[in-house]
């Protein structure tokens, strides 16, 4: 699971208010360099990304190079490289996504988050 996906996932347990973001508990992180560096794409994503969720998620996966806030003016090349790395190259292979409100853990196995709810959570 990449952070670009983590930035979209919410806890869907009935009644939960604080659904996003899910906290990451990383057990196995892999660096996957499968996506080309593309500044247009990154600038497009920058406008849509929840920055704090990305920074916290990256830290949970062992990457602390991102600034606390996204740049307001023209983004530097070095910033975009870090952004690219955090968004698209950090890959959670094994671990959990944790609901901040209930503590419920959604497992991530072989890079795939499992967001299925139990009977009593529906």
């Amino acid at each position, binding site marked *: *699971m*990449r952070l*670009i*996906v983590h930035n*979209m*996932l*919410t*806890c*869907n347990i009935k009644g939960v208010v604080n*659904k*996003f973001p899910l906290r990451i508990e990383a057990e196995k992180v892999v660096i*996957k360099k*499968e*996506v*080309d560096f*593309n500044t247009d*794409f990154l600038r497009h994503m920058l406008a849509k990304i929840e920055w704090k969720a990305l920074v916290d998620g990256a830290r949970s996966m062992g990457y602390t190079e991102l600034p606390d806030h996204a740049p307001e003016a023209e983004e530097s090349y070095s910033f975009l490289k870090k952004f690219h790395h955090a968004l*698209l190259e950090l890959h959670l292979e094994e671990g959990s996504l944790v609901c901040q409100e209930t503590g419920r853990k959604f497992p991530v*196995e*072989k*890079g*795939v*988050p*499992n*967001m*299925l*709810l139990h*009977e009593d959570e*529906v």
Partner: protein
Amino acid sequence: MKATLAPSSLISLPRHKVSSLRSPSLLIQSQRPSSALMTTMKTASRGSVAVTAAATSSVEALREGIAEFYNETSGLWEEIWGDHMHHGFYDPDSSVQLSDSGHREAQIRMIEESLRFAGVTEEKKIKRVVDVGCGIGGSSRYIASKFGAECVGITLSPVQAKRANDLAAAQSLSHKVSFQVADALEQPFEDGMFDLVWSMESGEHMPDKAKFVKELVRVAAPGGRIIIVTWCHRNLSQGEEALQPWEQNLLDRICKTFYLPAWCSTSDYVNLLQSLSLQDIKCADWSENVAPFWPAVIRTALTWKGLVSLLRSGMKSIKGALTMPLMIEGYKKGIIKFGIITCQKPL
């Protein structure tokens, strides 16, 4: 959801167009909901879903059954048919014996015809898509490539999700498409996220059609489009409460092997969308356009490669293969319909 069981609201078909491509246009004569849908609509209208313990665990059992079925059969399907796990779209009465690539083209045509029917064109600026019941991601990757859109897919099968992600990586689409294990009835997304909500042949697996449709609508963005392509049973006529017992019997046998809950009709979907105030609701019967599909699937299953793969794949695959003639029978006898239903969420 408001109760919409009053006869007057069911009979009229105001405003929305009914059109189809190349098959006779379907005038929906009646909108009597099927008995299966009546139950789900009644429970929803009470304001809470009063589901018994037995009912919930049967839903869990169905979910597990579906996951296991696709865990077991996906690899086999992909080997023989490729990454699109849906019917091909053919010209009606096409008697030409198609090659394998002809059928694959038909599967891609199914995607294109569905987008066209829903009025989803490049101009619509589709940016974010959800593929509900995504299989191994064929539709997602195709749509993401076509529109340059981001696409997330959800499936109950961990094997499918992993394979879908691997294929996306192999096609340099990892930044655009991703796949998760999630329940279509409890989607892990905020309201209004998606310009296009895509459900290609997954609706038939949903045990609660009302809840399924509500979720599709919830995650659709204002102005976004919803496309449902699904197996249905024929519409019920005026005065008909349910299918004939022999018709139901045929469907029950198919349900068992393909892990399907009760079937509903195209009109049932239309009614649900109407009750949720969706706009520009359209539907069509594409049964004639998919007729060559199951015979072709059976032919591939009966090849040497097909038989060996089936035997290696396991009992669920074998039972699935043995059930395919029932699909053909269902279509021939007019019980099973291949339907498309599309609409737009109001701004």
